[in-house]
């Protein structure tokens, strides 16, 4: 499962950060996940619980903030939200929009003691 590899990276980055901060406890880890990033939030949650066992992350919360995908029309420069990659420009109907956000897969922050 794809989300497993992603989660292992999350755990690695979070534990590295916690160590650098000499954290005694981790309350939560917040991600920013684009709506077109191709990962399933439920699967991430599931993997996170499994991957955080017996580490400082055990019991912490994984908070997933979705970033709505947006495109900019190449013909009329209007910016519009995308539900899938094929949505056309609502202003001029052009199908050539450039995605400028919505594919992110980022650890934003974590809450520690």
């Amino acid at each position, binding site marked *: 499962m794809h989300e497993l590899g*992603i989660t292992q990276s999350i755990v690695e980055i979070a534990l590295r950060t916690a160590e650098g901060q000499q954290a005694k406890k981790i309350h939560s880890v917040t991600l920013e996940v684009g709506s077109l990033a191709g990962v399933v939030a439920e699967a991430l949650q599931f993997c996170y619980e499994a991957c955080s066992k017996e580490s400082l992350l055990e019991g912490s919360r994984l908070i997933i903030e979705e970033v709505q995908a947006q495109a900019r029309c190449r013909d009329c420069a209007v910016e519009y939200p995308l539900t899938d990659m094929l949505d056309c420009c609502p202003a001029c109907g052009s199908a050539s929009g450039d995605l400028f956000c919505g594919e992110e897969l980022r650890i934003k922050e974590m809450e520690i003691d």
Partner: protein
Amino acid sequence: MCIDCGCAAPDHHHEETPRKTVRIEEDILAKNNRLAAGNRALFARQGIFSLNLVSSPGSGKTSLLEKTLADLKNEINFAVLEGDQQTANDAERIATTGVPVHQINTGAGCHLDAHMVGHGLEHFDLDSLQILMIENVGNLVCPASFDLGEDFKVSLLSVTEGEDKPLKYPQMFRASEIMLINKVDLLPYVQFDLAKCREYAERVHPGIKIFEISCYRGEGLDAWYSWLKEQAERKACRNKE
């Protein structure tokens, strides 16, 4: 109910610990991207042209490699990295062509990553290598997110899968500079609209380069071979400059 932990006990307190928020803002794929950049730099130094073949299971990635290697191995030095969850079947098929091949079994993993490819390269003589072919795990979803350091991703789509694949898996076709429509020998027997398929691919990836091929009967392979040779030559020259 306690709002801190959601427990039912009405009268207990949580210690007032000062929580600290640490900004991280790190790309989760950063490590893979770093390792991919390392592979890419190595390919550039050595003038190696590399392709990452992606498709659904069974579209014909190994068949394409078998045919390509058999026809071009006397002109070009190839090596192949084979990614599968289990078995060395594909590597064994490639080995019969005499071209160096290394199998990477990903186990539960559904895609190759840059780290696996970096170690896979240790099995080849890079000084004489001209084209590295990487056959990814059969999966049209996550290989799109994992850069291996290749020059291009090549998506294979066979005519038995339906012409709307580019619309269903836009991420993959957007990430691929090349699309190969395989098994065109089966066109008389299946409902597959070639023109629509091309149009859909062009919609998700304007300018995508498309070849129509049959690994069985050889249709369209000459154009593919010419492109391959031209690209490999260009990469090798850039390295000499």
